[in-house]
């Protein structure tokens, strides 16, 4: 389901822009999360100071990740759980499969896990005769449709309610074909009923984790639906999948991260359910799983830790950068070709999959900086994108024409007199050629621009020339 199609980014983008249904859904996007986030933050004057505190926690963790991981592991074992270290996706898949096999599992309920998506666990379990059932409503819908998620916190955001209704009518085949599926309420109730049976019948529950608390060996989960607790609490075996950078030192540190997480994600002060799970069922408990496993995944993170991209490992997957990205808003999540879209994805994906198949991702950005301005962990996303571009250039991945163009530009940039001469001549020429409409519909070598929009004709003088002749300012005045 999460096949990697990152190298098709350009084609995907073109079809996304032409997809009317998708564009209609994306049109509503900007009024949702960004507005709610702004409202929540308006009620918390300390928000920016909390972002600093959250950033500092994760920086400290990343600097001391080794001892924290060992401490976390020791505490999981002390509370009766097991930790499985996995270098890559294949090891993670095999680990999950062998736990499921030991449990004689036939069905596995799943709560949303980006790590599960990253290692493509669903397809793998299915191929091995085990039925995975997604329980987050959005994930459930896209699983029925066999689509990948299009957003890290709202996986079905690309769908209209009519599409969801059609999917339910087709897949819930034993229900009356002529039933009404008019409203999201009716659809939710139907999904809830379907999934209740799954929750009660599953042998293994597979979850993600928002944080791993080193102090106590707890995993922390966050949701609004309540599906995570039913996933972790009802089956006999619970497996949590998490990547190594999810560590926080203490319960107090977890409290700080929680203050910025939900506000940045959905604009809630706090998500409805936050749970700290520590080990399996205790001797006299009446419910809870008998086995508790944590699958700890590296899959490229230690390399990022050693690189100039370390900052991206502070990411708490809130989605704020995606929700404020003009590129995402124009093309949606599927165009990116893998599970992590938007700015965080454009930085993370080349790190996890390599630069070769992801060359367009760091370039699909205007570097407008909105993502960095909203990131609760203060990750310098535009700067990291720029670093990928530099690496691409160094590794000669940047297309020849662009490389050549950049080199030409660099030559002139280093020779300001020549640069000014060229821009001056160019401005005069384009002014003369601009015609009465003052814009170009076609321009040689600039098809990338003029295919989709007109290029305004310059006013006849270069910026530098105009600057030199600006009227004198009042003394002390600043522009």
């Amino acid at each position: 389901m999460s096949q990697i199609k990152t190298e098709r980014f350009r084609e995907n983008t073109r079809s996304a822009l032409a997809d009317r249904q998708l564009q209609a859904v994306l049109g509503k996007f900007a009024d949702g999360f960004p507005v709610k986030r702004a409202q929540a933050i308006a009620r918390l004057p300390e928000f920016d100071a909390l972002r600093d505190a959250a950033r500092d926690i994760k920086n400290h963790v990343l600097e001391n990740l080794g001892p924290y991981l060992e401490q976390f592991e020791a505490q999981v074992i002390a509370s009766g759980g097991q930790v499985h270290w996995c270098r890559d996706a294949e090891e993670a898949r095999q680990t999950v499969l062998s736990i499921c096999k030991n449990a004689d599992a036939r069905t596995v309920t799943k709560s949303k896990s980006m790590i599960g998506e990253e290692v493509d666990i669903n397809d793998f379990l299915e191929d091995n005769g085990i039925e995975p059932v997604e329980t987050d409503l959005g994930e459930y819908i896209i699983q029925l449709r066999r689509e990948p998620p299009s957003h890290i916190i709202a996986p079905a955001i690309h769908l209209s309610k009519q599409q969801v209704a059609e999917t339910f009518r087709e897949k819930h085949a034993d229900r009356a074909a002529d039933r009404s599926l008019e409203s999201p309420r009716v659809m939710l109730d139907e999904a809830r009923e379907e999934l209740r049976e799954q929750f009660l019948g599953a042998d293994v529950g597979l979850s993600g984790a928002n944080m791993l608390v080193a102090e106590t060996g707890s995993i922390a989960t966050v949701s609004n639906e309540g599906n995570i607790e039913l996933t972790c609490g009802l089956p006999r075996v619970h497996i949590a999948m998490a990547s190594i950078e999810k560590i926080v030192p203490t319960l107090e540190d977890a409290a700080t991260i929680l203050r910025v997480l939900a506000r940045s994600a959905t604009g809630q002060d706090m998500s409805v359910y936050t749970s700290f799970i520590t080990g399996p069922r205790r001797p006299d408990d009446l419910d809870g799983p008998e086995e508790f496993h944590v699958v700890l995944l590296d899959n490229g993170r230690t390399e990022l830790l050693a690189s100039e991209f370390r900052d991206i490992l502070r990411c708490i997957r809130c989605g704020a950068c995606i929700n404020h990205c003009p590129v995402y808003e124009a093309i949606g999540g599927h165009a990116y070709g893998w599970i992590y879209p938007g700015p965080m994805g454009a930085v993370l994906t080349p790190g996890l999959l390599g630069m070769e198949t992801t060359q367009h991702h760091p370039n699909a950005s205007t570097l407008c900086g909105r993502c960095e301005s909203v990131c609760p962990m203060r990750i310098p996303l535009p700067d990291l994108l720029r670093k990928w571009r530099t690496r691409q250039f160094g590794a000669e991945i940047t297309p020849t024409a662009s490389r050549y163009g950049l080199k030409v530009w660099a030559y002139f940039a280093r020779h300001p007199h020549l640069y000014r001469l060229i821009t001056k001549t160019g401005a005069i020429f384009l002014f003369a050629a601009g015609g009465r409409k003052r814009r170009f519909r076609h321009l040689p070598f600039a098809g990338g621009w003029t295919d989709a929009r007109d290029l305004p004709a310059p006013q006849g003088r270069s910026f530098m020339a105009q600057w030199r002749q600006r009227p004198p300012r009042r003394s002390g005045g600043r522009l």
Partner: protein
Amino acid sequence: MTGAREHILSAVRRATGTGAAGAGADDTVASRLAAHAPNLRPARAADNATVVSRFAEEAVRAGTDVRHATGVDEIPAIIAAYLREQNMPGGIRVSDDPISTAIPWVNEPLISVSTGAADPGDTASLSVALSGIAETGTLMMNSSPENPTMLNYLPFLHVGVLPESQIVGSLESAWSILRRQSGSENTAMPRMINLITGPSRTADIEQELLMGAHGPQKHMVIILKEK
């Protein structure tokens, strides 16, 4: 996979520049864990005289139905009225906590009470919270043989009884209660700590907010003032 463990840990150590023994880093980590110092706490999380009213206000914002009781003997009437109002059946699954077992249900003969772990057929449940967090109107529930976790999740209505004396300003203060209760500075964590802020919800279909996804559609907190 021991090979994987060593491989990952040594890659981490190389990346962070800490040696194989990592002694320096180990000390930094040990002292931070031992101190478990709170970070910045916002003003609205203060532990002061207004925690109870702030808790109620924030809980209502989150969609919780807040009620007040002076003594456990007022609880059955509150619940009976609510079940009638919501047109719900009269059964309730109640935890085995000392506070819940002290509730005198005899005054409401139409309510049938059962105890034990939650059953998929249960429509309403009641259990006792360890703490309430005023900052966000959040209940802190801890799992124990007396308070099984699924009571908080399976039924349509979950009622959390919250002793007023347990309401604090912040999650950090609630952690202190937990640390005190376990009798040691090193927390002995229960299997589950559930922080609950309002009823279950989803906005996964066209961003339309709907209550009652997989967890309870109705969430009630009874703030209990002991006489």
